[in-house]
């Protein structure tokens, strides 16, 4: 028995932080991910696809998005899609699920109630659909007493595992050993956007298309193969995601070459489908700081999105740097006093940041004046 496990597609997610083009591209990528799931499932001879919640990002997504999603699922008529509500599109979104119920193609099955869904004569899907955004109770408990005969017992649930919590910090209620307790062959989980194995029978598939700088590994789905009921499943990651989200936390040190360090952390290929958030930490001299800023400005357009956080990067006093402002006199005295103001001792973080910006700016202007 073979099927594809996915979740957290979050169709129609807004991505408001990004510019319009990027937003449109990221949204389109999610619908594309749905199609790719179908293609991968067909290519790998999966019998069905389980979507363990959060297919949609909101309780009332635009009907166009719902329509397109259902159309995409309909493009694979031999493939069964089992759709379960998550916490973003919980059972409380009555209107949404009514629309889907009305407009879905025949190969889409809705897991809206905690009742066994029989697929063929050998599979029993036991869904635990969230009734509201944060149910706060363990909805998987019913699986233990569910009579499924000889069928494979595949559970679907959405939410946080008791051990480490939910993606969005909601109350975690699913016991990590639910699969074992309820004699499930596999428990397909949604909510956590990164692929993760809880137990050999319990997995988060993660999002098929990444949606944030969360440091999750490559976005994709899971191909689950179970030879016989009771045997351990073979779970294989299936890459799906179009965009690569990278969060780089780099520590810089004065006296080193930050440009080189940054270059080493960035891949040269696939930049146009990569979104980067650089969190610069450490300390650099003024010149090095300036060089790093310049290179970041230059490479921004190489990537689909490139963002830098400078708050964690301090200024290191290097004599030559301050000499580049002035070797002495009032200008140097001003540079020295500004540099002293970048010391965190006895100062607020904001004051230190302001002083750093001031000193950096002085450096730039002084250099420009010198070059003129």
């Amino acid at each position, binding site marked *: 028995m073979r099927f594809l496990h996915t979740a957290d597609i979050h169709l*129609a*997610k*807004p*991505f*408001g*932080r*990004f510019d319009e083009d990027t*937003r449109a591209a990221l949204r389109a990528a999610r619908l594309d991910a749905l199609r790719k799931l179908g293609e991968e499932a067909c290519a790998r001879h999966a019998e069905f696809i389980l979507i363990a919640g959060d297919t949609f*990002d*909101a*309780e*009332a*997504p*635009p*009907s166009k998005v719902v329509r397109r999603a259902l159309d995409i699922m309909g493009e694979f008529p031999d493939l069964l899609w089992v759709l379960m509500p998550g916490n973003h599109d919980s059972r*409380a*979104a*009555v*209107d*949404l699920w009514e629309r889907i119920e009305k407009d879905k193609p025949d190969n889409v099955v809705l897991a809206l109630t905690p009742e066994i869904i029989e697929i063929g004569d050998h599979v029993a899907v036991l869904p635990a659909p969230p009734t509201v955004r944060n149910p706060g109770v363990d909805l998987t408990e019913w699986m233990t007493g569910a009579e499924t005969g000889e069928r494979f017992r595949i559970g679907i649930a959405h939410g946080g595992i008791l051990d480490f919590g939910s993606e969005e910090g909601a109350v975690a209620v699913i016991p990590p050993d639910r699969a074992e307790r309820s004699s499930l062959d596999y428990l397909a989980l949604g909510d956590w956007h990164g692929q993760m194995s809880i137990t050999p029978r319990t997995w988060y598939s993660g999002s098929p298309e990444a949606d944030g700088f969360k440091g999750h590994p490559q976005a994709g789905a899971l191909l689950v193969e179970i030879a016989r009921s009771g045997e351990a499943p073979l779970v294989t990651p299936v890459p799906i995601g179009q965009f690569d989200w990278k969060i780089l936390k780099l520590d810089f040190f004065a006296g080193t070459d930050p440009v080189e360090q940054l270059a080493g952390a960035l891949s040269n290929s696939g930049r146009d489908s990569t979104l980067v958030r650089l969190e610069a930490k450490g300390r650099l001299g003024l010149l090095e700081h300036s060089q790093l800023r310049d290179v970041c400005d230059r490479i921004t357009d190489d990537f689909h999105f490139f963002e830098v956080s400078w708050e964690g990067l301090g200024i290191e006093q290097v*004599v*030559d740097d301050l*000499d580049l402002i*002035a*070797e*002495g*006199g*009032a*200008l140097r*005295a*001003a540079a020295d*006093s*500004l540099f002293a*103001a970048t010391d965190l001792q006895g100062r607020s973080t*904001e004051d230190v*940041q*302001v*002083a750093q*910006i*001031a*000193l950096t*700016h*002085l450096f730039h*202007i*002084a250099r420009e*004046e*010198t070059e003129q």
Partner: protein
Amino acid sequence: MKLRMLELTNVRRFGGQKARLGPFGDGLTTITAENEVGKSTFFDALHALLFVAHGSSSQEAKNLQPYSGGAAKVAAEIEIDGKNFRIEKTFNAQKSAKVIDSATGQVIKQQGDAEAWIEENVNRANKGPTGLLWVRQGAIHVDPEGKDKDSSNVAARRDLMSSVRGQIDAVTGGRRMDKIVERCRKELDAMATKTLKAKAGSPWKQAEDKVEELLGQKERLLKDVAMLSQALNTKRRTKTRLRELQNPQKQAERAQQIADATEAFQKAEQHDRSVQDAEKALQLFVAEKDRLIRQIKDITDTQNRRSQLADEVTQRAADVSDSETAQKEADKALTDAQAVIAAKVTERRHLVTSLTAARQNERSRQKWDRLRKIAELAAELAIPQDKLGDAKAILRGPDVTQSDLDHLVDLGRRISIAQEQRRAQFASFSVRPSGTSEAEIDGEAVKPDIEILVDRPLDLHLSGFGRICLRPAAGSGKGIEDPEALQVEHDAALKELGFETLQLARDACNARQHALNDKSVAVAEIRGLAPDGPDALNEEWQTLCAELGHPPDEQLPTQSAPKATDASDLSAEQIEEKIASIDQELEELRSDITDLQMAATEAASETAKANGVLNHLLQEQISSTKPQGEDAELAALENARDIEIDKEDVAKQAYDDLREDAPNLQVARSTHERLLSAENADRDEINTLERVLARVDGAIETQSEGAVEEKLAEVGDQLEKASERAGRYEMQAKALTMLIDHLDTARKDAQETYFEPIRNELRPLLAQLHAEADFELDPEKMLVSKIIRNGVEDDINVLSGGAYEQIAILTRLAFAKLFAKQGRHVPIILDDALVHTDDERISTMFNMLSQAAQDQQIIVLSCRTRAFSDLGGTRAFIETDAI
């Protein structure tokens, strides 16, 4: 610090060579050598040694490299506070730095530590600008014979001053600082207001406006999302409720309940109607029975009443008789009282008449008494009246007052005094003719033995003798009154008074005084006897005589006044007492009359009432005569009553039986109504819910098509980003403000540190060169901007090159002196610094340099060997060796 020696190895023009320059003395050291020997190279190297880090890749370091390349090494022997050190640095390759204790040859610091040592002991010791005390050679060669002499001169001067300026600028930051500050201010001004708020039109303001706009959108979207959420919740609840209401099983159960309840209710209603009918029948029998009972009672009551009436009539007749008797007694009492009052009134009338007569008698007696009194008074009045008449007669005479007398006496006195004075002053003579001789004065014979005063010119004729002219002495008689004039005045006064002599006047005056006294006394006596005056008394006499009928001129009779008629023996007071007593009795009697009248009225009323009651009873008696057949009627009624009682018993039993079996109509009704009501309520609720559902479906469709949730999330993200952007601008503004503050503060500190002391040091120096000249320092640039000589102000730019360079040197000297005063000794290095100075001024400059060199190490480099040969001081030379 003092320089002792410089050594260069493979530096610039000394590539492949080691060159030494020195020794440098404590005071003035002169190094004269032709151009391009490398003098400036030494000092460029010295500057790099002191102020460029050995590891630096700066242009200054690179400039030390010779053409052939390689490491450039610079060393200097210096003295600090009596100790000698050697500083070495290697630039560009094999970079290193060392500080060596010259006494021991030990390396005391290396590399970074050496840099720090130099900074601390050489540069920082100045606590001031680096390179300040240098006067560098002009960058442009001055060619006096060249075509563009003026412009090249100006350029040379400008370059010279700019080297000064550049080094002073190093203190204050100079133009570079100005540009930086100006740029910062412009940037700040472009983005922020004076109060550090976003300026209108600036990117910051746009960012803030964007944040505001997004906040507005977010607020609106939150409402929309809330509405959507509410609509979804409402739909959820509505559908759940509809399912409950439209449950078929529940509906079937309800229908059955309603049917059962309806049947039960109908049965209960029918039974209830039967009970009501039985009750009505019972009530009819009871009503009939009551009517018969009332009729029976009426007849028996009438019979009872009839027997009562006879007794009452008898009683009432007795009452009437009693009332009439009482009425008669009351009337009699009233009549008696009225008679008594009438008698008392008559008595009083008589007494009043007697009182009038008694009063009349009293008045007559009083008049007679008064008349006698007046006669007595008149007799007494005669004496004072006579006295008064006499006094008045005297007073009518001449009015001589005491002042008149005093005036006469005074005149007499003056006359005497004048006479005495005349006698004293004037000579006098008398004649006693003998025989028939005669003497005449002014034709008048002179009586013998009469003293004659010579108070005027006199011509005394003596018969037989002749004339003797007598003249008073000059001035005699001055101030003496004329006694004759006085006498005339005296006599006139007497005559005016009407007397011949003073004594007569005096007697008259005395008599007058007495008369006045007598008059006063008489007037007082008369007033005492007749306060209103004798005339009033007389008038009263006349009046009383007329009233009493007595002739006023006749004497009064001696007997008492006659009595009036109708006068009683009682006095008026006694009569008045009696009248008062009768009045009191009358008052009491009248009060009693009122009570008697009320009693009589009451008695009459009672009598009338008793008569009225009696009449009423008599009429009733007549009307209640027993009719025929009354007894038979009564018996029939009693019989009918008994029959009705039986019927009533039967009907009551039937009614009680029905009531006992009755179902609870209230319960059946309420159950039936409740079920119907619930059914209707469910129906209504279903209708309402369906309408609600239609409405929320519309709202959900609208909001979901509007993608409000997505838009809210999107706006939230955008808002976060916009807020970050606005925050960055704010930080930028703060940073610019901080930057400008620090720059301004540093510049101000530099100015304060250097400006004023510089002025104080420079002024006396400049005075040596330009007597009575003053200058203005540009505080921004710390350069002399104007020089004022003989009241004429010249801008520094128009000065000659020589004046320019002199001022530059003097500025250095001023700094050096300043540092020296602060205990910091810094060498001054003048590298071809007096190239434009004329001979006269150069001499002055030499003097000043020499003076300064007494406390200051000054190293002078010049290519003008001859000119500088007069400078004096230690001479140093450049020596070179191949490496």
